């Protein structure tokens, strides 16, 4: 029966992530942005808690907790610093093509050695054929990756994926947002592939998980903005009362809250669907779209509520606005997600039945 509660294990995990984010990330966000990396202590704690292996199979030293666990943690981390959330996860969403297309061998040969060496895998979703492969080599250029080091580049396309370790020409960028994760452009011509897989169905599954990962980061980012704006509006006085008590702002704050709650519940539902082994491609595309759309409603309004202060970098809301915008560019972008979800819908027959198990509304 419909149950919106979390198991004790997942509640505890979420509390742990919340505590970590509060103690290690939240107040260090501007420092991490300037340094283009989270502090070393945050990195050590992150690994010590076991966040790195959350979704890895037990055989690979992971906790195998699944997608719901991952999105709960990602939301908490992003609610403090979305750039740091990306930077701290050494495999990040690059894990998904490795698992879905490369299987155990890819984990063993690519992912685990990288974790061992303290490296970072970076994912590029390429739905437009910007990366070309031929004779075991790749060429292409990627205008922005949220990373300052790329020890393993995983390129995920519609038909398959490939992995590149060498021959990458990286140029450091300022980055529009997510600077705590770094920012680079990458060019390569004749870079040797260390692996390449062709499997459109598996690529679609991997893309779904990538989208859900980003959706969770977006939910955390907009939650931070909404919560911060609400607290600020209760303190800030204008025209003789807290600005939150002017109905124009009270209603806006309520709508920001509603946007976050709605996006989150869609993310959770998609995660549960993934964890049940059901087809979650459309659900994940929808969750990403919803999180992207709502975060682009919430985070600019977070700035708006603070007025002039919101525009200044003394407050975090401007950062969350830039970061939500940047996050929603990743994973192939929102238009591709809209296209995928729309095509799936166009292929289904009304009535779209009530049961979610049957994959309807």
């Amino acid at each position: 029966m419909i149950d919106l509660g979390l198991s004790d294990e997942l509640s505890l995990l979420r509390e742990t992530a919340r505590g970590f984010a509060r103690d290690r990330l939240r107040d260090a966000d501007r420092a991490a942005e300037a340094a283009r990396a989270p502090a070393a202590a945050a990195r050590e704690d992150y690994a010590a808690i076991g966040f790195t292996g959350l979704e890895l199979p037990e055989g690979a030293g992971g906790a195998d907790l699944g997608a719901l666990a991952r999105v709960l943690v990602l939301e908490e981390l992003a609610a403090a610093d979305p750039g740091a959330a990306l930077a701290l996860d050494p495999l990040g969403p690059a894990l998904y093509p490795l698992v879905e297309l490369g299987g155990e061998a890819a984990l063993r040969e690519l992912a685990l050695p990288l974790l061992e060496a303290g490296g970072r895998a970076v994912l590029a979703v390429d739905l437009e054929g910007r990366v070309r492969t031929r004779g075991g080599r790749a060429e292409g250029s990627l205008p922005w990756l949220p990373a300052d080091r790329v020890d393993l580049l995983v390129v995920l396309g519609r038909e398959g994926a490939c992995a590149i370790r060498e021959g990458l020409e990286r140029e450091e960028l300022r980055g529009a947002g997510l600077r705590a994760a770094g920012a680079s452009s990458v060019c390569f011509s004749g870079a040797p592939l260390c692996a390449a897989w062709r499997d459109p169905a598996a690529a679609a599954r991997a893309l779904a998980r990538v989208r859900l990962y980003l959706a969770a980061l977006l939910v955390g980012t907009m939650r931070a903005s909404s919560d911060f704006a609400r607290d600020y509006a209760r303190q800030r006085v204008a025209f003789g009362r807290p600005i939150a008590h002017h109905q124009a702002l009270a209603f806006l704050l309520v709508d920001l809250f509603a946007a976050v709650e709605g996006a989150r519940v869609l993310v959770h539902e998609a995660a549960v669907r993934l964890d049940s082994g059901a087809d979650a491609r459309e659900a994940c595309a929808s969750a990403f779209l919803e999180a992207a759309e709502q975060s682009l409603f919430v985070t600019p309004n977070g700035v708006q509520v603070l007025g002039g202060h919101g525009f200044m970098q003394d407050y975090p809301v401007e950062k969350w606005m830039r970061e939500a915008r940047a996050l929603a560019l990743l994973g192939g972008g929102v238009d591709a997600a809209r296209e995928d979800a729309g095509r799936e819908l166009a292929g289904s027959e009304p009535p779209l039945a009530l049961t979610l198990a049957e994959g309807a509304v």
Partner: protein
Amino acid sequence: MDFRIDAATEQRLAGIRALGRAEIRPLGLEADRLGRPVPPDHPFFRKLVSLGLGRTRWSGDGDARASRGAAAREGSARAALCLAEELAYWDRGVAVSFPGPGLGEPPVLSMGTPEQKERFLGPFREPDRPRWGSFAMTEPGAGSDVAAIRTSARREGGAFVLDGEKSFAANASRADWIVVWATVDPSLGRGGHRAFVVERGTPGLGDFKIERKMGLKAYESTSFTLRACRVPAANLLGGEEHYARRAGFKGALQSFNATRPAIAAMAVGIGRAALDEALRVAREDGRLGDSRVRDRLERGRRRLRVARLLCWRAAWLADHQQPNMVEASLCKAVAPAVALEIASAGMEIAGEAAGRGDALAEKLFRDVKAMDIVEGTGQIQRIVMARHLVGLPRDPGAA
């Protein structure tokens, strides 16, 4: 976390689906075409009663608290939401016209004495024929601001004398009784409110006027007057002691809180019907290749899913006896707007054919608007949420 519907509820949904396709949807379309409610002597209502519908959920023994607790353990709020959504999918107007104690039931259950429950809900246990109960709070001058009702109740010996006007009460002219809210002293606001069960045929109860509505024509929204209407003191819900114990407003407030997610779920149901119809029309017209059409459909489905999940969460909290004021108002604030958007998009997809006045897409567009108004408008929901979330004072001017 689990987003699956249990087998028992799924089975009941299958029953509604069959009835919906064969009877509810066609009846709703017919009522819309004729511009009048389904008449009380329609054979459909007798059929519903023979199917075991139109009954009270009062079991006849134990107090309301105990039976509510038992229902909660069975996950009743969640199951009720699913059923409400599915009924509204087929026709929300027909769903409201269903026989039964209706919105009058919650106040009788929560406030009524054991004798009153027996008197008023007893006949709904094994109804011999279609019977209706009704609920009347709204007045011409008091909608969302229920504290402003002016219908007066004056004690005279063993009776109360009611005077006033009530508006938009569902099924009132066909009801065996109407729970009428009145005030013994308007200066007391909610503290002066009293709920009376006014029985059909009581002298002074009259001037029933079935309103002409934009949509949802299958059920009657009825206005009526109470003129020197003498109601026995035994019909004061809960008796005098009940109101001495607590503010009269509580009962109404509680029933609103319990029904907001259900109204929101009905909006989702209507929205789903609009989405299905839009998808059908787009396919028939060969327009699914148009990404502008697909994008509208996609957004409709996604937003409906969000709205549904928010409804489920509010109901899940209720089933666990956790406070759900914010969540109940949240889903009620979100769902009707989402459903209206897809209904409007559905008309756009149908194009000029939706302008003829006989298209399902157009009916749904009219029907769904009411969902943002009944049980507290979207604005009222935002005020409720703002009180909880940012401490919005009851009188913003006094802050």
